[in-house]
């Protein structure tokens, strides 16, 4: 379905960014613009999600018909620039916009003026512009441009109000990301040289028709390094724990909630959708190999196991709140990569469900991780420090903060009935039924250690004997109402994900369906004449799987 309004996801933050830049002397107007635009963004994203998921009775009943597509300048698909919102994009947009709104509330009410005044606002909106553009773009080169905008804003945010010591870490972050971006643009150019197109739907079509050239495979695998660097997976993670903890907690939360998840999103889009069904055919049209999957899946699964386990070991060994939370990001990324790996493994029990689990885990993590960072920020407001030996007794001092932190922390660790449990449950179950025992066992072990590291913050920070600035200066009462409000918004959202998990998993499963079998996406973007050829053997197994699930559902309802 053509809907040109989806360009608003780019135009709104861009307009807000420009307006707040021009008005940088008037913080009150900046705040008003920010609040207005971010709220409008949430509303738009939820409407888009509703349209794509078919909540509205007037909408089309067909997967391809519900995907929102807009061709820039009305150039036909593979030649112009395509933007498209499918299920995955819509989910990411909706959750991202809510996270951004909450962090914005926190920033304007808690951060000191040297962070939150003047040029902070344009950077915030431009960061959102980059993130949202990478969610809706249907073109590989535009994904690069969107990444660049997002990273450029994040570089500048790193340097707003930093000390000299943090500058050193900023260099590490900037230089590494620049190398990653250069690699990305090289890959995109070489892929164009091989395939003659950069349109995601067109590349998907070429892959599914068995026309992927042999030389394109190494280029695609090189993209794994690019996204791996952004997502911070095992050998490429070293920049993250060194840099994120130097940020103010709120900006750290924003980065933790968005930046690594954009990398995970790009992985799903590129590896699962674009190349997951890429095949090589023999002369009679039978599938002889999945060229990209065969290389990427073992790498992803091994890396996922190592990433999640080493990440959580790092978290257990750390002693400041922000460091524990930053290094935890890595461990959580492991779960996402595990889900992506299982979803790509050919012949897995159910690719769709594994990917649905991964998407669910990503959105759960965006919310909860960001929420924990914000809690960490408020702990510093109360105790004046975030070293676990120098804070304590916050349970008495800030009971609301303690409650919200505990819910978010247990949700991250994955205790039922909170949101983390369902994400992990789906992933681990799919892992076992797909026969990936080692990584699934590691996932369970990681989960336990996550609980341990969260309880560490809880017992040192909230339960132990009071110490810190709130003891030496008992009359200093920081104003935390805005911060608590922002955290409460995220916690309520995370709890709805836990108690209403059935609905959320339903939405993510629908999104995963159009990623695992991308023919609706290809039809929606390129037009109905381009129906990709699905190989007969594959179609047979798919139909079996569908019948089996249909049976299960029928049995359940009886």
């Amino acid at each position, binding site marked *: 379905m053509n809907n040109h309004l989806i360009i608003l996801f780019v135009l709104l933050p861009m307009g807000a960014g420009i307006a707040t830049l021009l008005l940088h002397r008037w913080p009150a107007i900046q705040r008003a613009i920010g609040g207005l635009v971010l709220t409008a963004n949430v509303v738009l994203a939820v409407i888009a999600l509703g349209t794509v998921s078919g909540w509205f009775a007037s909408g089309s009943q067909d997967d391809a018909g519900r995907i929102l597509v807009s061709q820039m300048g009305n150039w036909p698909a593979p030649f112009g620039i395509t933007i498209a919102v499918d299920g995955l994009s819509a989910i990411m947009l909706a959750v991202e916009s809510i996270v951004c709104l909450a962090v914005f509330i926190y920033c304007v009410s808690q951060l000191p003026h040297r962070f939150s005044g003047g040029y902070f606002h344009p950077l915030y909106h431009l960061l959102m512009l980059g993130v949202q553009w990478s969610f809706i773009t249907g073109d590989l*080169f535009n994904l690069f*441009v969107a990444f*660049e905008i997002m990273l*450029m804003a994040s*570089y*500048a945010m790193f*340097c707003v109000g930093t*000390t*000299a*010591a*943090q*500058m*050193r*870490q*900023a*260099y590490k972050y*900037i*230089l590494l990301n*620049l*190398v990653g971006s*250069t*690699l990305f*643009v*090289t890959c*995109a*150019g*070489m892929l*164009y*040289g*091989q395939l003659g197109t950069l349109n995601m739907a067109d590349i998907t079509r070429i892959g599914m028709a068995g026309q992927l050239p042999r030389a394109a495979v190494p280029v695609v695998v090189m993209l794994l390094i690019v996204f791996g660097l952004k997502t911070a997976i095992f050998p490429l993670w070293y920049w993250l724990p060194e840099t994120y903890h*130097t940020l103010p907690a709120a900006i750290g939360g924003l980065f933790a909630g968005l930046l690594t998840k954009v990398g995970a999103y790009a992985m799903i889009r590129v590896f699962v959708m674009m190349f997951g069904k890429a095949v090589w055919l023999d002369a009679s049209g039978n599938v002889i190999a999945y060229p990209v999957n065969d290389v990427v899946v073992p790498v992803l699964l091994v890396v996922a196991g190592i990433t999640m386990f080493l990440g959580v070991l790092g978290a257990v060994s*750390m*002693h*400041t709140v922000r*460091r524990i939370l930053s290094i935890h990001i890595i461990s959580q990324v492991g779960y996402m990569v595990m889900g992506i790996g299982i979803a790509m493994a050919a012949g897995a029990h159910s690719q769709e469900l594994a990917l649905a689990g991964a998407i669910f885990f990503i959105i759960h993590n965006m919310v909860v991780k960001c929420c924990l960072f914000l809690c960490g920020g408020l702990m510093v407001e109360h105790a004046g420090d975030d*070293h676990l030996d120098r804070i304590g007794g916050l349970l008495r001092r800030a009971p609301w903060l303690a409650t919200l932190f505990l819910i978010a922390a247990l949700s991250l660790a994955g205790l039922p009935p909170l949101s983390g449990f369902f994400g992990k449950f789906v992933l681990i179950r799919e892992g076992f039924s797909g026969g990936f025992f080692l990584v699934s066992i590691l996932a369970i072990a990681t989960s336990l250690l996550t609980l341990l590291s969260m309880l560490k913050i809880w017992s040192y920070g909230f339960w132990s004997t009071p110490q810190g600035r709130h003891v030496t200066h008992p009359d200093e009462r920081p104003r935390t109402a805005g911060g608590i409000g922002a955290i409460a918004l995220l916690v309520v959202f995370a709890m709805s994900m836990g108690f209403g998990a059935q609905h959320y998993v339903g939405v993510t499963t629908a999104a995963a369906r159009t990623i695992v079998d991308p023919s609706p996406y290809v039809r929606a973007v390129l037009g109905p004449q381009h129906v990709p050829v699905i190989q007969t053997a594959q179609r047979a197994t798919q139909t079996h799987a569908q019948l089996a699930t249909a049976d299960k559902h029928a049995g359940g309802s009886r």
Partner: protein
Amino acid sequence: MTVLTAIMVGVIFAVSVYLMTGHELKGVCMGVFLLGHGANLAIISSSRSPLGKLPPVLADGVNLADLVDPLPQALILTAIVIGFAVQAFLLTLLVLTWRRSRTLEMGDLAIEESY
């Protein structure tokens, strides 16, 4: 032509990696800038050898197969613009670092110690 470009890309990448492994921030930044140029050269080679082809200008009676593929040039143009922005940002950061800590040696920059 393609072989020549490939060799040049290789040399540029090698030099930039050498620069980036240094300890001096100016050199490291130059290495990153150079890497961008190498990448641009690699992309332009994806439009195949331009020998015997016409510039991509549409006119009457021109056979489309005789034209050079213009898209890689468009890609590079975008990449160059982004590269400029990043260079400007990094150079500003270098000046700022120098003003604050009077050194551009990576090892001499202050380290924050708290685990």
